[in-house]
C-alpha cells in the first residue's frame, strides 16, 4: 500500500538524518577548543599531569578522532549512549531524568501559545482594522522581536522580586520533600513564569498566522454561501471558518516542535529549569561530549517523529493531499 510505503520511506530518511546529526555534531563539538579533562581539572582546582593522562586514556580521548567517532557510532547503534565524563553517570539515565521537566514545559507552553494565540487571531480577524487587531499586530511584533532570555529575566524581576508572588527559579521549592497534591501545586507554581516566557514568542506567531489564515478563509466562497443561507455569524465564524483556518496553524505547530525545544534551552537556563535544554547547555560548557551528543540524538529523534506524525495527521485531516 502506498501509505505504508511512505511511512517506511520516511522512517529510513529519519534514520539517515539521525546518522547525519551524530556525525555533524561529533565534528562540531570536537572543533570547540578545550577538552573535557581540562574542564575536570578546572573543577578540581588543578590536577597532576599523570592523572590527566590517565583520564584521557580512560575516556579514549588520546585516540584519533576518526577512531573515536567509529567507537561512538558503534555504541549508539547498540543503543548505548555511554557515560557522562563529568558526572560519571550513564547518559541515558541523565537524559531520562530530564525529559519529564522539558516535556512538561514545552507542552504547557505550546498549549498556552496555541490556545491564546488562535483566540486572539480569530478575534482580530473579525475586525481586521479594529483596535484589537492593531493591538495584536503590535503585540506579536514585540513578541517576535524580544529575545526569550531577556523576556525571562524581566519577568523574574517583575514577578519574583518587585512583586514577589512567583518563585525565582527551579522546579520545586528547596524545602519541598514529599509528594501528593502539595507537590503538584508547588511544581505548577514554579511552572508559570517559564511557560509564559516560552509561550510568548510562539503566541505572537500563532496569533499572526491564525489571523491571516482566518482572513483568507473568511473571503472564501463557502463562507459567502453559509452567510447567504442565513446562518448566524457565530456559527459561520466558529463552525465553518475556524475549522478550516486551523489547518495551517496545526501544521506549523507540529513542524515547529524543534524550534520550541531550542527555545526551551534558553528558558531552562534562565529559570534554572532542570530539563534537557539546560543539560545540553551545561554539557557544552563542560565539553562533556557523550552527554551533548546523547541529548542531540534524542532531540533529533523527537523532532523527526513529530514531523512524521504531523505529515500523517495532515493527510488524515485533509484527504486531498496525496503522496
Amino acid at each position, binding site marked *: 500500500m502506498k501509505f505504508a510505503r511512505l511511512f517506511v520511506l520516511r522512517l529510513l530518511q529519519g534514520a539517515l538524518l539521525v546518522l547525519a546529526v551524530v556525525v555533524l555534531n561529533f565534528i562540531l563539538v570536537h572543533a570547540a*577548543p578545550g577538552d573535557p579533562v581540562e574542564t575536570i581539572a578546572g573543577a578540581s*582546582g*588543578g590536577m597532576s599531569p599523570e592523572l590527566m593522562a590517565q583520564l584521557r586514556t580512560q575516556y579514549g580521548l588520546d585516540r584519533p578522532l576518526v577512531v573515536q567517532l567509529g567507537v561512538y557510532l558503534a555504541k549508539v547503534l547498540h543503543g548505548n549512549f555511554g557515560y557522562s565524563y563529568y*558526572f560519571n553517570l550513564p547518559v541515558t539515565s541523565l537524559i531520562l531524568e530530564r525529559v519529564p521537566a522539558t516535556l512538561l514545559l514545552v507542552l504547557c507552553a505550546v498549549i498556552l501559545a496555541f490556545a491564546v494565540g488562535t483566540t486572539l487571531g480569530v478575534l482580530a480577524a473579525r475586525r481586521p482594522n479594529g483596535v484589537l487587531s492593531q493591538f495584536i499586530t503590535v503585540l506579536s511584533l514585540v513578541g517576535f522581536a524580544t529575545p526569550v532570555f531577556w523576556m525571562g529575566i524581566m519577568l523574574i524581576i517583575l514577578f519574583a522580586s518587585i512583586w514577589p508572588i512567583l518563585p525565582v527559579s527551579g522546579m520545586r521549592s528547596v524545602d519541598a520533600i514529599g509528594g501528593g497534591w502539595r507537590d503538584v501545586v508547588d511544581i505548577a507554581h514554579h511552572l508559570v513564569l517559564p511557560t509564559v516566557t516560552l509561550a510568548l514568542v510562539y503566541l505572537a506567531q500563532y496569533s499572526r498566522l491564525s489571523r491571516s489564515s482566518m482572513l483568507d478563509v473568511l473571503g472564501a466562497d463557502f463562507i459567502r454561501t453559509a452567510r447567504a443561507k442565513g446562518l448566524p455569524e457565530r456559527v459561520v465564524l466558529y463552525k465553518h471558518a475556524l475549522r478550516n483556518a486551523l489547518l495551517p496553524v496545526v501544521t506549523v505547530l507540529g513542524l515547529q516542535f524543534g524550534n520550541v525545544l531550542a527555545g526551551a534551552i534558553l528558558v531552562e537556563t534562565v529559570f*534554572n529549569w532542570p530539563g534537557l535544554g539546560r543539560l545540553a547547555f551545561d554539557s557544552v560548557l563542560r565539553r562533556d561530549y557523550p552527554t551533548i551528543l546523547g541529548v542531540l540524538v534524542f532531540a533529533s529523534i523527537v523532532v523527526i517523529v513529530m514531523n512524521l506524525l504531523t505529515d500523517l495527521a495532515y493527510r488524515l485531516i485533509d484527504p486531498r493531499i496525496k503522496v
Partner: protein
Amino acid sequence: MTSPILTRRDALAAAGAMLAAAGLPLDALAVEDVKKGGTLVIGSTQVPRHLNGAVQSGVATAMPGTQIFASPLRFDDKWQPQPYLAESWKLADDGKSLTLNLRKNALFHDGKPVTSADVAFTVMAIKANHPFKTMMGPVEKVDTPDAHTAIIRMATPHPAIVLCMSPALCPILPKHIYDDGQDLKNHPRNSKDVIGSGPFKVVEFTPSQRTVMEKFDKFFLPGKPYLDKIVININPDGSTLMLGFERGDLQLYPFVSLPTDLKRVSANKNATLTSRGYEGIGPINWMAFNLAKKPLSDLAVRKAIAMSIDKKFITKVLMGGFAVVDDGPIVPSSPFAVTDVVLYPLDLKKAAEMLDGAGYKAGANGERFKLTIDYLPGQDDQQKNVAEYVRGQLKKVGIAVEVRASADFPSWAKRMATHDFDLGMDLVFNWGDPVIGVARTYLSTNIKPIVWTNTQSYNNPKVDELLEAAGTQLDPTKRKALYATFEKIVTDELPIDFINVIPYHTAASKRVGNLPTTIWGPMSPMDEVYLKT
C-alpha cells in the same frame, strides 16, 4: 578605611581576644543560646561531579563532602588543628610519621565503626587518585597497630601532612564500601548511597540541581549537629541566587565576590556579611607573564608593566573597596605570608623610562609593542574588568594591549595549557599549605601543558631549591624564613603580577548562628551552625 566589613571583623577579633583572655571557650558561650532543628538552605553556583572528596578536589565537592565525611582533624580560625575523628595526634620529631589516635565512638552512616583500616585505605586512595599529588606524595604506607591507631609513614619529612588531614582534603572513606577493586575515581558509590561518618548523611543527590543532607543521629560529637537538614541548592546563575537570598529562600550564600552583590548584602538589614572563612583557600587574582615570549622575557619590561598598574585603584574602585591588595605568591592571611617583598607602586613616568632603557622606544604612533591579555570568563568583576583596566594603563606607557575574550572555561584553559598567551589573568587558590597550591606555579619541573601549572615557564634553580627545602622543613620559624626568601625572589623576578585577594564573602541571613568562619569556612563541617527561631 571605614569599610563596614573591616570594622565588623575587627570587632569580632576583639571579642575573640577578650574571651580568650577570660579563659572562656568560645563553644561554651555559644551552646547556651543555640537552638536546635531547622533546615539551612545554602546557595551555590558550583556543580559537584560527585560527593567523594578523596578523589575529587574543588569547592563544589568539598561543600557537601565535608558535611558527609569526617576527617582526622579540623582547623579553627587561627590555623590550629583541632581533634575530629582523631582525639590526639603527633607528628614525629623526624617529621616522617604522623600518629593518629582515633576516637572509639565514631560510626559511619550505615552503622559500621570507623577504624584505622578506613584511615589507611583513604590515605592511600588519596595518594593514588587525588588531583593534588603533593598532598600525600611522600606517604609510603599507613601502619595500623590497632583498630584505633593509624601511623602515616613518609619517605621524607612532610610538615604539610597535618593540614592535609583537614575535612576538605582528607575525608575518611568507608573501606568496606570502596575497597571492592573498582576504580575509585569512577566508583558508583561516589554519587549513589554515599556513606561517610560526618554530621550529615545524604538523602538526595541530584546532579547539578541539589544535595539534601539530614542530621546523622549517631554522629560522634555528642549533641551535634544542631541543624536537622542542609540543602545545597545549585544555580549556575549567581544573580538568581542573590535574588533568592534576598527573598529568604536561601539562608547562606558563600563565595560571593561581586561588588554589586556585596553592596546589596551590606545594605540588607536582615543579612550579615563576613569575609572570614576563606583563609585556607587563599584565593588570589593575578596576571601572569609568559616568560617564554618576547618582550616579556625581559625583566625590565615586566617591572615596567607592574609599575603601570595601580592595585589600590583596582581594589577600591573596581571592586568597591571589598577586596584587599595582594603583593606576593602567598595570601596575606596565611601564616607563611611576609610583608617584606618587592613592591611596584604606580609610577608611569618611571615605567616609560624603563621601557626606553630596555630598548623599546616608542614608534611614530607612540606605540612600543603589542601584547594580548586573556582572562578567565564568567568572573568579570575579578578578571575582565581588570584586564580592561590593564589595557588602559599600558596604553599610557605605549604598550598596545588586545583583550582576548574566551567563550567559556575550556577555551580559556586551552590557551593557558598550550602557553598561547602574553598576559594571562587568572584566579588561583593557595589551598592552605604552599606545597599544595603555591609551589606548583613556580617549580621549573612543573612547566607543563596543563592549566594551573607553571604555564609562565618561570625557571630559577634557587627557587626550586627553596621550595624543596621549605616543603620538608619541620621548624615553623625556619620554614617561614625559607618561604620569605622565596617570596622576595619571586616578587623581584615577577613571573606574575599579584593583584588582589579575591574578595570572597559569605552572605548569611541574620537567623543563622555560628557562621562557618574557620580557615576552611564553608568547606568545613557545619555541625555547630544553627538557626535562631
